[in-house]
């Protein structure tokens, strides 16, 4: 008789991500992408409405500036921040840049990302006449 009898420990398919802090952080990142996607969809609808004329555009504007619209955008903004910071933190792992015998330090790559983000944001704010 084979004396081996390996024991397999059960894993929950539906709540595994609650078992460790690092899985929760990962899930937060994944969920945040949902909000970024919805935000983007609303923006695209806005563009379509703009093309449809004054009344359509005004309707869209009213919707996004209504209390529900504002609350959604505040929440989406928080999730966008979470999404951005968690992505930028991981970038050096996926983007390994070698110069001669040296690997470019991760901090530099992350810093460059924040630099570009700041520049683009400033440009957009100036365009919008806010800054």
């Amino acid at each position, binding site marked *: 008789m084979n*004396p*081996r*009898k*390996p*024991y*397999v*420990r059960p*894993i929950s*398919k539906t709540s*595994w*991500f609650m078992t*460790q802090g*690092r*899985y929760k952080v*990962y899930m937060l990142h*994944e969920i945040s992408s949902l909000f970024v996607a919805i935000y983007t969809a609303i923006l695209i609808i806005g563009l379509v409405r703009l093309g449809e004329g004054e009344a359509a555009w005004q309707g869209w504007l009213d919707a996004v500036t209504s209390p529900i619209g504002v609350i959604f955008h505040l929440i989406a903004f928080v999730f966008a921040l979470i999404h951005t910071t968690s992505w930028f933190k*991981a970038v*050096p*792992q*996926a*983007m*390994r840049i*070698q110069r*001669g*015998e*040296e*690997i470019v330090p991760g901090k530099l790559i992350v810093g460059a990302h924040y630099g570009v983000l700041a520049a683009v944001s400033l440009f957009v704010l100036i365009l919008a006449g806010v800054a």
Partner: protein
Amino acid sequence: MSERTIELEVLRYRPEQDQEPFFQTYKVPCEEEWVVLDALNYVKEEMDRTLSYRWSCHMFVCGSCGMMIDGEPKLACKAFLKDYPTGKIRVEPLSNFPIERDLVVVLDDFVEKLESVKPYIIPKEERTVEQGEYLQTPAQLKAFKQYTLCINCLCCYAVCPQYGLDESFVGPAALALAHRYNMDSRDLGRAARDDVVAAAEGIWHCSFVGACSQVCPKDVDPAGAIQQAKFAHGIDYLTSFLPGGKR
């Protein structure tokens, strides 16, 4: 040298008599500078000869003592008791692997995966002894050196949720090793490895949770290796549309 009694809660499983694993607590008189492995060795030598676990080097090179220590996959020879001030430590076999006995897990699945990625140099050109050695610059070495440091301790598999949910996933260490050879200037085996590496169960199964790299005791960064491999395949795919691209 000061002594401290540590309560070691060890998950035990004896296939010939147990239906399922259970915790057994040992009160171990430990010296301050000990690691968890020393405490296990004390149990084995002085308290309970039936306890089974793997170890060999006691200096983080052999990779055989990976286990869950207070829920984190660690090398037992690198887990210092002074980092566990409560004096209570829970020791379990590596998660995501079947338990063979006590702290010993079944490694067959990993060994098969390791073989499947062809972890050896498939040379660009066959050279005879007379032609001399394959030359490599320090910069070429740097490109893959980090990924050679893996000691197959499997801590990364124990924390990878994708492997836990679906063991068909090739997994972090094997994919990192495939990347190690793909990045080697002497190697031309990438296409041969792609059957496994670029399959759905390969790099694309990884969702970049990054947990593997957080626990790796050798800073191999398997998560990074996998994302770089994805990036390389993405570029291949895009350039295949260019004139002269191979499709």
